[in-house]
């Protein structure tokens, strides 16, 4: 038995198979390559968020594939975007379930093969609003985008931007970071904003607060900002209906501290 053990050890110990880094090869259905506008693979969620160090699809005669060399511990993220803005951002967990994974120690390669295009297409369904919130244009890899409240209208479409009851809302700034469901958002209010009691719980005397955001509902038109352990009233005030969205403007419905409903038009902070 000892001899057999030694033989096995000899065969298996000849080369280092520990694979400190791995080549992750994602094979995608050919149909996907023909239909989507953008595919990139990122080594981590942080890279996915910033859009740095992403790798694009390699053109091939058969199915397209992406190759990423990274540490074994990473969780690759796929960024798939269709021309209409539908994307994969909030469905990474479902995406990883669809891939058939295999491993080869010869070249330290993990292959993730997506063969079912219909299933894949069904998962890539995140709302284009995710892209509008974060990017300046559809081809931008990642990053963040800051928004200002430009105008506020009441239910009768009158401009109420300068009304005192809407001043707290009017002075809010939002910076959305790329990342899909549960991505980060920074909410700011100017130091000289005066007393905004409706957001006191959020800012607690500071001028910025971090939270996460997601688009909820069947049509993903409810922009929900989640802050840990706050009152139901503030939760309601941080839940908006997205009425219209584009890269250069956002129209949402919201409420002020008096439970009045209004419509805010947000524009990028660097808008000219």
């Amino acid at each position, binding site marked *: *038995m000892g001899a*057999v*053990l030694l033989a*096995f*050890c000899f065969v*298996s*110990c000849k080369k*280092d*198979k*520990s*694979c*400190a880094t*791995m080549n*992750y090869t994602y094979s995608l259905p050919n149909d996907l390559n023909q239909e989507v506008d953008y595919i990139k693979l990122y080594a981590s*969620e942080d890279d996915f968020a910033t859009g740095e160090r992403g790798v694009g699809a390699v053109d091939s005669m058969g199915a397209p594939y992406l190759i990423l060399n990274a*540490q*074994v*511990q*990473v*969780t*690759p993220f796929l960024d798939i975007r269709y021309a209409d803005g539908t994307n994969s951002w909030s469905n990474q*967990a479902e995406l*990883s*379930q669809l*891939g058939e*994974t*295999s*491993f*080869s*120690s010869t070249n330290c390669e*993990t292959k*993730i093969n997506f063969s079912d295009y219909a299933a894949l297409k069904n998962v890539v369904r995140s709302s284009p609003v995710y892209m509008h919130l974060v990017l300046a244009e559809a081809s931008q890899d990642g990053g963040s985008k800051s928004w200002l409240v430009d105008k506020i209208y009441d239910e009768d479409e009158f401009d109420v931007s300068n009304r005192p009851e809407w001043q707290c809302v009017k002075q809010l700034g939002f910076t959305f970071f790329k990342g899909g*469901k*549960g991505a*980060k958002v*920074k909410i700011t209010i100017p130091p000289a904003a005066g007393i905004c009691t409706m957001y006191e719980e*959020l800012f*607690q005397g*500071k001028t910025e*607060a*971090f*939270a*996460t*955001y*997601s688009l*909820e509902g069947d049509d993903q038109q409810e922009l*929900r900002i*989640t*802050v*840990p*352990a*706050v*009152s*139901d009233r503030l*939760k309601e005030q941080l839940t908006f209906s997205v009425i219209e969205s584009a890269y250069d403007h956002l129209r949402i419905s919201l409420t002020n501290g008096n439970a009045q409903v209004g419509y805010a038009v947000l524009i990028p902070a660097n808008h000219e």
Partner: protein
Amino acid sequence: MNKKAIIFFCSFIAKVLLFLVAIQPMCKAQTLQDYEMQVRDLERFANSYFAAYTNLFSSNFGFSLNQGWQGGAIPKKAGHISFSLVGSSSIIPINDRNRYILTNSLYQSSNIQTSPITPGMFTDAKGGIARLFLLDPATNNRLVDPTNGEYLSANVNLIDGIGTEVGVTPFLMPQLSVGLGKSTEISLRVIPIAIGLNEGKVDISALGGGIRHSLSQWFTDAADPDFTVNLLFSYMRNKVKFTPNGDKFLTFNNDYFSTEGTRVLLSHNTQTQQALLFFNYRIHPFIEIYGHGGAIRQTSDLGSDGIFRLKINDEFIQDAVDKSTLEYSDLFNSRIEITKPVGGCGVVLGSGFLKAEVQYTYANTHIASVALRASILSGDK
């Protein structure tokens, strides 16, 4: 159960619950029970991960335990007694199919993100990570610290392989065999071992037996034929139990938490039943070779008994939540049931008082056995 695995699980739960403490001062509208589902998901993930990590050991130990039964001719007359020392081990080649665990085969939960692969038990592979996020109970959205934007999350390194690069399940066991006459022999194996460790006591017990009978005696009149055929039925069961010393195991006590009242025992049990035919041929008075084949069934249970109890020590938290103690029973629980064909060969060397036997069996994986057998009484002569 691997000791690293235990430490891993302990830190796993502790880190998550520390998150709960971190946000509880702001969480007056919520209770610890609001987050319990997320902790339960972690428990399920950990369970599926440990089952996958220990799979090679759990699924093969019982098979190897039920090998090493003697081949060769059976003493004809009653009264023959022999004593054997049997050693056996699975020898599981590590290859690309078992070097890593594919994490998409594990329990999935929205608060746990893992690397695509993580090392299996016997490999030299390293790496593998699980990232745990605390989610808002109402929206299932990740939570961040409002002051700095950091996710309320923890990275937990999953367990590296132990680096043997070959899977083994070694054991050594005494065996007593008694001839019943008509070329029939029964064998019994018993092994009670208790090992004292700083962390606690490990009790290993195994028992079982086999009965073998010569079929060929009914078809030949030869007094001592060179070619014989035997039938073997065997049954083995084993239990490995880890009883921790006092509060040392899966327990901790700090400003936030204590595990007072926790009492968890870890156990691994197997049961195997086997039926084999042996075809023996004596090529020399001192050398007998054989081939054997049949089927084997194994049930393997990896589990725990007792209660894991987490209590919140912090007075503020105790006031803020409805109930400050969570209890978990059945922390680990996985069962494997396999029926496999068995085939192999062996050689018996020696004659009279002392014999040595080397056996190879394939039952789910490669199994090598060696035995030294000494005749105490020769009822045959």
